[in-house]
């Protein structure tokens, strides 16, 4: 791999050769990545369009699982992500970004879901009281609405 890139990158001044060590991948690598991506794309489309699973929640988890695997496949075969790339700084930056993305996504969804659930009871509390149910939900909702500024 690096021998090949040295051979074609024969620059007049010696140090330019080293600028060219980032991997270009191989034909085999690209084809493996492409075939895997096609499979990992086709299967979730088929699962959703053919209604393979009865439960939407299970289907959603399976689809996200396939997406996660395909992202890893792209990282390895198309973006040539290796622990050695750029002396490990590429991978470190990626891991740092993934941590931030996880916090941003899960944090947003978590906080806003609870905010929705706690803001809702002003309407559902009256409905719940009218129906004589929802005893579990209403005290908590009342407490939350008191702590609201």
């Amino acid at each position, binding site marked *: 791999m*690096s021998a*090949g*890139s*040295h051979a*074609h*990158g024969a*620059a007049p*001044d*010696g*140090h*330019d*050769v*080293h*600028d*060219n*060590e*980032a991997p*270009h*991948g191989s*034909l085999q690598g*690209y*084809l493996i*990545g*492409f075939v895997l*991506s*096609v499979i990992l*794309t086709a299967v*979730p*489309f088929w699962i*959703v*369009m053919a209604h393979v699973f009865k439960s*939407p929640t299970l*289907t*959603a988890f399976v*689809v*996200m699982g*396939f*997406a996660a695997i*395909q*992202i890893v496949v*792209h*990282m390895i075969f*198309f*973006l040539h992500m290796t622990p050695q790339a*750029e*002396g490990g*700084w*590429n991978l470190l*930056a*990626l891991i*740092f*970004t993934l941590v*931030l*993305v996880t916090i*941003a*996504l899960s*944090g*947003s*969804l978590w906080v*806003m879901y609870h905010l929705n659930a706690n803001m809702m009871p002003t309407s559902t509390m009256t409905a719940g009281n009218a129906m004589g149910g929802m005893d579990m939900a209403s005290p908590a909702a009342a407490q939350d609405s008191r702590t609201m500024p």
Partner: protein
Amino acid sequence: MSSSSSLAAADEHARAFHLAVEEDHHPENGTMLGFWIYLMSDCLIFAALFATYGVLGTSYAGGPSQAELFKLPTVALNTSMLLLSSITYGFAMLAMAKGNKGATLIWLGITAFFGAAFVGLELQEFAELIHDGASPQRSAFLSSFFALVGTHGLHVSVGIVWIITLMVQVGQKGLVQANQRRLMCLSLFWHFLDVIWIGVFSFVYLIGVLR
């Protein structure tokens, strides 16, 4: 291996000795790492847009939902266009590694074609949605949908402009070192956009129609 070759070169040119050895310890000139960090910051933009869509994706305001709007066969066609453009860009990089200027230009042109097909299909989808009254103003769901998918489409459009620019540069200057570096940056950019699209078609379209 690289140090021995540079030492051999240094024997011939004594003046180049310090330069060659010092360059050896630097990982290239940092362009690829810098561009990668740019991509990671771009990733954070998309994370914010995904989070926005995740929060607002069910706020229909009495308007249409994902299941009523999305046509999965179109999305599948769109996805295949982007995936094909990814592999053809890979072939362009392989041609570049062999120093084959003509093949590089041809594969870049095919990549730009698939990218344009992707953007064209997406614009057609947007036009149909807006024509049916599902415009960004209709509901919070549609605002966040257009913001997320539109930002991705804008990135792809800029990528196409970049491909055409580099095709002109490679055509005029050939596969010189600077052009190889630019092509490698664009390679990261283009494959990165495909990675984002995996999230879009899974999280927005496929899971969307389940709701």
